[in-house]
């Protein structure tokens, strides 16, 4: 037990170091960027003297390390800067759009896992047989697929040709308000069946486009993990004691296949954080990703860097949570990270 606590403390300490490094990186990027916060704030009409005065007031005449200290203090107090386009705080803007992105990414992660895990287990159990070859072909095709382009093909087929699914936005008409901002949960809680189906229909195509790349990568890992579990001694023991192969896999193998996947799902999240930027643009999904692309075209640096910082924090936190979850699920894990 105590080694586990020490390990988790080390892990949390590492996460803190990573987060500190992220602020250093985003600060360095901000310093690299051609934008001049004083000029932006003062407006294009302001005189050089007025801008210089503002620069002193903002602390931009200080040495870089002092500026970094001030930046760090602002970030720690939840101040991620102000959007150049709207003049509103970046954190506020991103928080307003976060539920849409969280709903999209979570759905894609669930769909990817629900497809990839059975595929990987199937391929491993029929190693060398035709299922193995089929899964390998599906994996290669999926990791070679540009998700944003697949999204367009899906729009052409399911929206333009068949007219089955919507291709734009999260909801037909005005979004129903709700406590979580996650439409699937809010409509379900309100007993709004039509709204739930509408939200689900809007999710279908972007989720497919976002999940595709992950399915192949995940299926490969599940296959490799299942192969190593299937040859373990406790599996031989289970078979020897008279269990059928199916029973042995269900009762003895699955837990050991699935537990190591927890941290890998966290890696999938990194892929999706970035994938959502591209996919949301394709589908006009009103989330953080599409907002960041607007900011890129407007060169709104505080928003771009605020996004990088918040995405990194979310990612590091998710990784830490996944590690803790895994160590709870699998008490054998004690080695240092």
């Amino acid at each position, binding site marked *: 037990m105590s080694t586990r606590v020490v390990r988790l403390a080390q892990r949390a300490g590492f996460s803190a170091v990573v987060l500190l490094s992220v602020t250093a990186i985003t600060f360095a990027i901000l310093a690299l960027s051609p934008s001049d916060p004083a000029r932006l704030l003062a407006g294009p009409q302001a005189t050089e003297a007025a801008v210089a005065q503002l620069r002193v007031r903002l602390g931009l005449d200080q040495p870089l390390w002092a500026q970094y200290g001030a930046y760090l203090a602002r970030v720690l107090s939840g101040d991620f800067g102000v959007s150049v386009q709207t003049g509103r705080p970046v954190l506020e803007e991103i928080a307003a759009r976060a539920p849409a992105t969280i709903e999209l990414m979570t759905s894609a992660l669930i769909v990817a896992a629900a497809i990839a895990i059975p595929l990987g287990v199937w391929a491993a159990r029929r190693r060398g047989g035709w299922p193995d070859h089929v899964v390998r072909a599906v994996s290669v095709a999926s990791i*070679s697929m540009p998700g944003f382009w697949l999204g367009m093909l899906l729009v052409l087929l399911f*929206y333009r040709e068949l007219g089955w699914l919507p291709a734009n936005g999260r909801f037909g008409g005005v979004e129903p308000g709700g406590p979580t901002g996650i439409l699937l949960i809010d409509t379900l809680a309100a007993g709004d069946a039509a709204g739930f189906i509408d939200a689900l229909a809007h999710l279908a195509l972007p989720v497919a486009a976002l999940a595709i790349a992950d399915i192949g990568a995940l299926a490969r890992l599940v296959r490799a993990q299942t192969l190593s579990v299937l040859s373990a001694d406790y599996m031989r023991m289970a078979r020897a004691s008279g269990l059928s192969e199916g029973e042995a896999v269900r009762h003895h193998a699955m837990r050991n296949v699935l537990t190591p996947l927890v941290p890998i799902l966290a890696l999938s999240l*990194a892929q999706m*954080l970035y994938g959502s930027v591209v996919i949301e643009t394709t589908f006009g999904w009103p989330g953080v990703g599409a907002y960041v692309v607007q900011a890129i075209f407007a060169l709104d*640096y505080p928003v771009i860097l605020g996004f990088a910082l918040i995405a990194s924090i979310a990612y590091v936190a998710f990784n830490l949570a996944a590690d803790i979850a895994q160590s709870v699920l699998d008490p054998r894990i004690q080695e240092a990270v």
Partner: protein
Amino acid sequence: MRRPPFVLYAGAAIVAALGACALLAPWIAPYPPNAVDSGMAFAPPSATHWAGADGLGRDVFSRIVHGARPSLLSAVGIVAIGLGGGALIGALAALIGGATEQIVMRVTEIVMALPGLVIALALTAALGPSLVNLTLALGVLSIPFYVRLVRGETLTLRERGFVKAARAMGAGPLWLAVRHIAPNLAPVLAVYGTMGLSGAVLAASALSFVGLGAQPPMAEWGALIFDGSQTLLTEWWVAVFPGIAVALSALGFNLLGDGLRDWLDPRGDA
């Protein structure tokens, strides 16, 4: 050595075809990439314009063929920076050892704990959106992956007789890395580098699609797809055909990498 697997040939054929497009673009493409012909604006695919024409009447097929140059060049650049830099740092870290190795590995761990593509996106935006900056950002952020790979491999090579002998003769870390470690890692690096090209093509086209890479009028695949996405529902061909080029090159590099791994390392089964 065994016969190379079929996927190796399939991948090599695709990559060779795309490479030929890049090298021989002016001779393969029926039109110059930026030849405007307002009479042909949004002409659908036909015998004269195999993949149709875009809003300015430019031939989409010709733009895809010419697009192979910037698209593949940036992918090669990304992997060259990541693999070249990563291999050198990883090998030197393992050969020098001590505090240097510790520091390099801690920094590597930290960078690998970040969502790399998100950081690359911010870095490219800050440097100014262009294909060169995008290549630099994606290349630099892929360095840690190769550092970890090469350091691990070097740690085992370090204990082999020929490295110890060279070291006893007075060879320094740089000499060892270039003359003794690099040749022995060539097969592993060929496999990972080829697969890295697949990821690089996809990442570069995606970031160009959101405006961070090639700027108009450059014919780059991601930028072409963005161009076509504006009129997807009415003139689908402008976006759909360049996407085939991206998917095909990613597939080609993946098959080639897979095939190389199976061929060079028959024990590996991942």
